[in-house]
């Protein structure tokens, strides 16, 4: 593998993986904050508003980190993937530009109002500010997924003589079926992260016997949102995604399952390490015929194996793809189990005293981050060896004029920068959770939006 190409890939993978720690939480928390604000309006109970204010502070810190790590992503298409940008800019730059113009402005403007304006706005007005922040963050997510969805499954384009792609219909790009399915799957994944985070903080308060009223609200809202999102994540969104992928990226599906040979009544591998050279799986634990059933709805269907595709079209890192997919799917199943058990205990009104379950909820919050990251690895490693599936190879897209050493230099710079950022964020967030929803100074000086007339 060309050294520079490898480093450009690591550069993008590292910066985008780190970046996505933040949007998955903010996109997941945004609807939960709207729910808390709605409960406050409905019941008049100030504890809901206090809970909303607490999660808004968490949102604000993570949103800032998402913005500062997101700006490098938009620029990296040009700096590290210049040929790709030149060839596809006429299509994928439009959703990216719309993200900047539409939703980013919306979020920045209303986030200011939402964070600083509670005392100036009526409770209804402040609900609307929360709702518009939610709308903006979900629109942002949509435009980004639309760009990725087009790379996964290109539609509504024509190719000019110079090789460049041009848009024929922006609606076509937005309504790309791949994008719609991937968007549903991505957003419910984000809600899982938000719900587990909320339930974990609540469980911590209950276990530590402090901030009990807030703790119960966090656990209740977190568990109810968590069970809904975890189930939706598998069915219908994950199920549809898997079937659509099998139809349009069959080599990727085969590699995800390490299915080296076409098989009628193909099994689903639960555990085992793929050996690409020998084309086998070490110590496999399988569910017979399950893969054929999941993809085609019948145990007798044939699933195409990697032997049906020329090796140069195989995903370039099959073990990584296989593990990413299995980590995602395995964790997704565990999330349903955790949330179903918690929801049952909540329904029986014994959850707040069930310390063993609260321990599980408290310790579970890192795993949705891992599952979401593994899901994106599945999508992006699975798209290889293509940048634009079937049309443009990854090796044709990087900035050949930027040397390996310069790429390594900026990669190391980003690593250092993000290490520093992580230390600050962990400090601020643990301090915020330590202060609790009832105590502590406001996260932002409230003076900032109050102009001359205050």
């Amino acid at each position, binding site marked *: 593998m060309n050294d520079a190409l490898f480093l450009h890939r690591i550069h993008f993978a590292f910066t985008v993986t780190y970046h996505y720690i933040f949007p998955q939480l903010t996109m997941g928390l945004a609807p939960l904050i709207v729910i808390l604000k709605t409960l406050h309006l409905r019941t008049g109970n100030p504890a809901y508003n206090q809970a909303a204010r607490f999660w808004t502070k968490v949102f604000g810190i993570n949103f800032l980190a998402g913005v500062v790590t997101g700006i490098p992503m*938009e620029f990296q298409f040009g700096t590290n993937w210049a040929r790709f940008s030149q060839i596809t800019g006429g299509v994928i730059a439009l959703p990216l530009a719309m993200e900047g113009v539409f939703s*980013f402005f919306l979020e920045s403007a209303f986030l200011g109002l939402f964070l600083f304006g509670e005392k100036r706005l009526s409770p209804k007005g402040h609900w609307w500010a929360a709702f518009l922040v939610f709308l903006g963050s979900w629109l942002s997510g949509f435009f980004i997924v639309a760009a990725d969805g087009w790379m996964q499954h290109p539609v509504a384009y024509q190719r000019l003589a110079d090789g460049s792609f041009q848009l024929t219909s922006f609606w076509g790009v937005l309504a790309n079926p791949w994008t719609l399915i991937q968007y549903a799957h991505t957003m419910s994944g984000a809600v899982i992260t938000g719900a587990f985070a909320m339930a974990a903080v609540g469980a911590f308060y209950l276990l530590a016997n402090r901030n009990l009223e807030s703790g119960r609200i966090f656990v209740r809202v977190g568990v109810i949102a968590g069970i809904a999102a975890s189930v939706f994540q598998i069915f219908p969104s994950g199920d549809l995604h898997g079937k659509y992928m099998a139809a349009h990226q069959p080599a990727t599906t085969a590699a995800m399952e390490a299915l080296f040979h076409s098989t009628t009544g193909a099994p689903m591998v639960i555990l085992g390490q793929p050996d690409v050279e020998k084309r086998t799986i070490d110590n496999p634990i399988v569910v017979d015929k399950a893969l054929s059933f999941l993809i085609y709805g019948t145990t007798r269907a044939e699933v195409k194996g990697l032997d049906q595709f020329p090796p140069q079209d195989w995903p370039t890192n099959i073990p990584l793809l296989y593990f990413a997919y299995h980590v995602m799917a395995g964790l997704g199943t565990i999330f349903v189990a955790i949330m179903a058990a918690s929801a049952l205990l909540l329904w029986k009104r014994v959850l707040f005293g069930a310390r063993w379950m609260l321990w599980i909820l408290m310790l579970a919050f890192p795993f949705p981050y891992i599952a979401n990251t593994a899901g994106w690895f599945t999508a992006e490693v699975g798209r290889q060896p293509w940048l634009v599936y079937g049309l443009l190879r990854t090796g044709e897209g990087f900035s050949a004029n930027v040397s390996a050493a310069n790429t390594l230099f900026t990669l190391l710079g980003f690593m250092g920068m993000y290490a520093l950022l992580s230390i600050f964020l962990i400090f601020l967030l643990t301090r915020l959770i330590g202060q609790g929803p009832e105590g502590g100074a406001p996260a932002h000086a409230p003076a900032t939006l109050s102009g001359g007339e205050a």
Partner: protein
Amino acid sequence: MGTIWYSLVALMLAGYVVLDGFDLGAGALHLVAARTDAERRAVLESIGPVWDGNEVWLLAAGGTLFYAFPLLYASSFSGFYLALNIVLWLLVFRALGIEFRMHLAHPLWCAFFDAAFSAASILLIVFFGAALGNVLRGVPLGGDHYFFAPLWTDFRTGANPGILDWYTVLCAVLALVAVAVHGALYLILKTEGDLNARLRVWVKRLWPALVALSAIGLAATVFVRPQLLDNYRAAPVAWIVPVLVAAGLAGIFYFTRTGSERNAFLASCVYIVATLVGAAVGLYPALLPSSTGPANSITISNAAAGDASLSIGLIWWSIGMAVALGYTVVVYSMFKGKVRPGAAGE
């Protein structure tokens, strides 16, 4: 169609410089003009609710450039790779300085974040000024329209220049002074008392330097790239742009004397926009001139996306910008008037 998008990108970039310019300029003067903690908080509160919205203009302009002129985006972003990555790191540092200062009230941390905010602001202005200098001077584009610029070579403007040479450093210094004046005029508008008085002194001190540097910068630009005058020769009506630059400078001087804070700030906006439009008029129809011969230059015709893409994009872009301008107006109107630290905290 290409010319429309050229104008749109130029205007978005000018909008970015005017808007983010005042908060960058505020940052440049932060350590020297604001002395006490209360004054520094006043500076941050003056830009607090708007600086991140201002930065979105950079993102939106970048996205628009990517869409309308993919070759220019690809070639310039990869060619100026080192400078751009340093700019990204500075943007991160600066955001941390502004936001975390509000979260960590301890004096020790405040000193650290104030320094990070100010240093990052100054370096960002320097890099943006040098970037404009690089575009005006031209870069050694190859036959494939790509290049790679090291941070510096021999500080000459010859065939193999770096990102920094004597001309681009001159542009950077001019940018630093211009944006510092712009930031000071914005802060004068938002503050009162000692801080306001001290900022007025800074404007008076910097104004002669700004006039001198503008004149030297103009002469140096004509010396480095005489072709920039071609469009002015062909269409003398374009001379109105340099006249507006001079009028902006005179306006800053006049309105600062008469104490008309709002007009002085507007004059500075006119100065900045006219300077950038003047550069865009000189460059047209080139987007990134080549120092290795005009055949390699990136121009509107060889960099623009296809006509179909550009027509579709224009509709969506117009809707998006109309909405974005809407919120910008809303946020600024909610935030008008002077900032009074402490007193405003309900």
